[in-house]
């Protein structure tokens, strides 16, 4: 026996079995104890509860939701809410971050100072404090009767009310896609190698593409329009509350604003790093070829900087996606809050935690996959001399 233990291979195998076994044993023991404790409270384990109706409401949902809906539908609502808040936050943070990052790399000292002040202030205050702050600001706005008004948009302590077209849900989504295409199509047409025209002479094609997409959007809106109603539904005060229009609740706006400002300060640093990574020689070469400052920026500096910042940006986006879980602090029904509420109401603790982990794993992995794809697509081909 002792001689067996002296054998390196046997010892290694034993060590591994011991390590993995003790970890697995601990997890198993926890699960067993939890199941026994839950069974004592009359909760049967298993995923049957997913098909029972919940009996409680969510305060924000993009999908239709009633208290009679089953749990699986609520989890879906949570994921959609998380993705919606996450992507809104990502887009806003990217816009803020790009502006501040460009200010930080600008040749103007005052603009640099301004950008640096922004980053130093907002990066060093915890996100959740900023969420609380913006939530307090919005809920302390005037009541609906004294709401601020501009361009048909109402801002009050109940939230932000914006006009919305009286159009069916499917048609509305289709029109939104057409609008995005109207922006994306000219960009793609300007760069693709599938057209015979030289890259510089495609203005006509680009304009036609954009016009066609816009026309599509208009036709969809006209067809999908709800009969007997004005095309735009303006919010207006009725009694003590505001009726009509689209209401963006304070919880959502507070989270989106906080994520945009806090995330923007991080993205600004990534943008700055990306631009710093572009070799000076490459820019000087472009300048000496006689390119205008704008073309140097769009054709040389920006593409090279984008390649440098994309991997770091992907990590930051994953982090921001996870930051949406702060919704629970102000009562926004994101995925995590739905899970927490499920545990409170149904007691299906283990299953809900499992679903939570699987959900976030799926979100993170798919984000990472998308970014790997983009990264690969824009990577420089062949062997490069760098420096």
């Amino acid at each position, binding site marked *: 026996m002792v001689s067996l233990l002296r054998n390196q291979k046997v010892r*290694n195998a034993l*060590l*591994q079995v011991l*390590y*993995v076994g003790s*970890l697995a044993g601990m997890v198993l023991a*926890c*699960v067993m*104890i*939890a199941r026994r*404790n*839950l069974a004592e409270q009359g909760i049967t384990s298993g995923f049957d509860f997913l098909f029972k109706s919940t009996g409680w409401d969510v305060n924000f949902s993009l999908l239709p939701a009633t208290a009679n809906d089953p749990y699986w539908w609520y989890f879906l609502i949570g994921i959609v809410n998380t993705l919606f808040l996450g992507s809104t936050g990502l887009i806003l943070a990217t816009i803020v971050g790009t502006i501040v990052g460009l200010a930080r790399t*600008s*040749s*103007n*000292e*005052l*603009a640099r*100072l*301004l950008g640096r002040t922004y980053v*130093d*202030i907002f*990066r*060093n*205050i*915890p*996100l*959740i*404090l900023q969420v*609380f*702050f913006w939530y*307090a*600001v919005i809920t*302390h706005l005037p009541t609906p009767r004294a709401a601020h008004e501009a361009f048909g948009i109402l801002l009050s302590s109940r939230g932000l009310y914006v006009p919305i077209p009286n159009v069916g849900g499917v048609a509305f989504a289709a029109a939104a896609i057409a609008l995005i295409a109207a922006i994306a199509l000219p960009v793609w047409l300007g760069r693709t190698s599938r057209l015979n025209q030289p890259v510089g002479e495609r203005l006509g094609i680009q304009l036609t593409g954009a016009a066609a997409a816009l026309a599509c959007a208009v036709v969809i809106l006209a067809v999908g329009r709800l009969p007997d109603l004005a095309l735009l539904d303006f919010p207006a005060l009725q009694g003590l509350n505001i009726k009509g229009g689209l209401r963006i609740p304070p919880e959502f706006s507070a989270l989106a604003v906080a994520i945009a400002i806090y995330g923007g300060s991080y993205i600004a640093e990534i943008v700055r790093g990306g631009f710093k990574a572009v070799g000076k020689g490459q820019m000087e070469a472009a300048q000496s070829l006689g390119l205008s400052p704008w073309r140097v920026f769009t054709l040389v500096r920006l593409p090279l900087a984008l390649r440098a910042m994309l991997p770091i940006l992907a990590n930051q986006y994953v982090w921001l996606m*996870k*930051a949406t*879980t*702060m919704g*629970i*602090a102000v009562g926004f029904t994101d995925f*995590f809050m739905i*899970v*927490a509420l499920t*545990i409170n109401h149904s007691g299906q*603790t283990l299953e809900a*935690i499992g679903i*939570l*982990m699987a959900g*976030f*794993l799926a979100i*993170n992995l798919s984000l990472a996959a998308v970014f790997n794809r983009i990264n690969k697509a824009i990577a420089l081909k062949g062997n490069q001399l760098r420096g």
Partner: protein
Amino acid sequence: MEMVVVAPPAPGRLEDLRRRFLATPLQALLSLVSLAVMVFLAWKLLNWAVFAAVFTTSGGPVACQAAAGACWSVIAARWRIILFGLYPFEEQWRSALACVSVVVMTVLSCIPAFWTGRRIALVWGAGASLYYVLMKGGVLGLPYVGEEAWGGLALTLFIFVTTCLIGFPLAICLALLRRSDLPWISRTTGLIIDGVRSLPLISILFTFAIVLPFALPQWLQGDKLYRVILGSALFFSAYQAEIVRGGMQGVPSGQEEAAMALGMSYWQRISRIVLPQAMRNALPATINQFVVAFKETSLVVIVGFFEILASGNAAYGTGDWRFAYVEVYAFIALIYFVFVFSLSRYGAYLERRMAVGER
């Protein structure tokens, strides 16, 4: 023939300013816009925070609310609850002293003279136990105060320090296990690290605070505060382990091979050769991780702890001070800012200091 090189005349002060800020029309426009934004914001902020602000408590909330600027009276009236939470009033000097001991400990560990494993462990051990004795009492004639009464800044600092104290050694263990030669050990550890990293911290805190009592036998459950600290330490260590591992990868393999050739044992190799060099490589990222950990202590408010953010909510949330939320949040933000900004400046200084050695 002799060549004479004449330097261009140095620009005068006005010319220098013109070149820096008004070189082209576009630059001039950018300078003007930036200057206008800065002056406007600075004026607004100064006016709100100083010139039009109320600093005394004499008028009470009503007089304060009428002021055009900030109402700092709320801080004067409520600073004790923000900093110390529900800690007994007569004993709050202990809470203050405990905060000071933690700050001194952090400052000491930033001095390079303390950067040996033994000294840093000594400083942190002494600081943490001093904090614990001061806060909890029950010895040396100090009245006993249970954890449930801890709050405010003192609780924030406690969670931060214990998270680092537990998380750091755990991170080194995880990093060593992950780079183990035995495939199953490194794979399982990798799975744990990546799994924890893919989850949001809030969900881990929630699991440890609320779900874990179901899954543990009675004698293992402990206080909710310590379970949450354990969860936060686990999260910290998963990130820190990757930083340590990165640092280890930066150590040339010849170093470890040379140590092996000298006949050093595994522990000697790790503690004398690999870890010291790896920690040096990983130092900037480690400081950054400490900064992140400090900011993330604020998340425990969600599982119901009375740390500085929650005590701030309580300070303005009840009674007459309901309107003064901006001042309270500004005060808390300033406290966080002082801690986090000085830590991150220190990190930047370290990065520069190390870059000198590599030039």
